[in-house]
């Protein structure tokens, strides 16, 4: 745990400085998790602020120190989930946004501004995001927390308040779908290259 429970207690009593300290302690970790969950760098900070906003208004419900981190993780998961659902609703807007981004990227590449490394990273991000389209937002987040964030099943159990076996089943099914999508993508790529 990055902060003392005493600090949390002070924040619960309305001490703004204590709340600031909690935010500063967890801010980077939350930003990193959200960056990997939503993969839209421009919106990461906005979603992270939403997490801390929810934390501020629900802090008085916290009773013990042990549940603080799983609880903060749950708030992060919920905020990322809400964001991803909104994004799905705005898909048409995103499509036009993406094409604009592609035009900008092409322009920049033509001018030699985009480094090769960043292009590679972008390609990886896009590939994984495309694969994750094979599962629901909720399963996508669960899979990310397990496979990318490296949370153990015990930790996930605390975050989701669901028993380990149910989580294993959900994870297995989600991974199978992603594997299937990955296999298909590889087959398509192979066919494309052989032509």
């Amino acid at each position: 745990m990055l902060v003392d429970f005493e600090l949390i207690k002070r924040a619960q009593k309305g001490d703004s400085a204590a709340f600031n300290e909690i935010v500063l302690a967890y801010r980077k970790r939350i930003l990193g998790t959200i960056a990997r969950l939503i993969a839209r760098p421009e919106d990461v900070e906005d979603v992270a602020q939403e997490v801390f906003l929810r934390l501020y208004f629900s802090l008085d419900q916290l009773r013990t120190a042990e549940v603080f981190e799983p609880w903060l993780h749950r708030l992060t998961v919920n905020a990322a989930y809400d964001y991803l659902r909104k994004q799905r609703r705005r898909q048409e807007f995103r499509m036009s946004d993406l094409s604009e981004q592609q035009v900008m990227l092409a322009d920049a590449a033509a001018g030699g501004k985009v480094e090769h490394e960043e292009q590679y990273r972008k390609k990886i991000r896009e590939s994984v995001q495309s694969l994750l389209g094979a599962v629901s937002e909720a399963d996508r987040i669960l899979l990310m927390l397990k496979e990318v964030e490296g949370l153990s099943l015990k930790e996930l159990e605390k975050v989701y308040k669901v028993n380990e076996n149910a989580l294993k089943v959900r994870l297995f099914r989600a991974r199978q779908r992603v594997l299937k999508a990955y296999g298909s993508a590889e087959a398509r790529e192979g066919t494309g290259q052989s032509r």
Partner: protein
Amino acid sequence: MNSMRGNVDDRLDALLQAYRDACPTPEPSANFMPNLWQRIESRQSFTFSFQRMANAFVTAAVALSIVLGVYMSIPRSNPSSYSQSYLEALADANTVDTPDYVAPVRLELSDPGR
């Protein structure tokens, strides 16, 4: 077949690991904390005004209930209108003295012998 599957599994793991490296943790901007507090304050003011509205509504509802309760408990100022029961009122309206609309028929039979 299994080894192929194993390969796909491994490649997916490697891709996810590469994804982790491709999503670096962003540095928070200088406006992170001011924006956060701004959002907290605007939410608080919204909640506060909503609470005030809700309180005003509850107070008005309680006051109206009390007024209605008092009004219903006060005896009516014109008690004569309901002083009789329905049957009494009906009986009063149809007393024996009241002439019948249909008078008894009197037959005057003339004697044919006279």
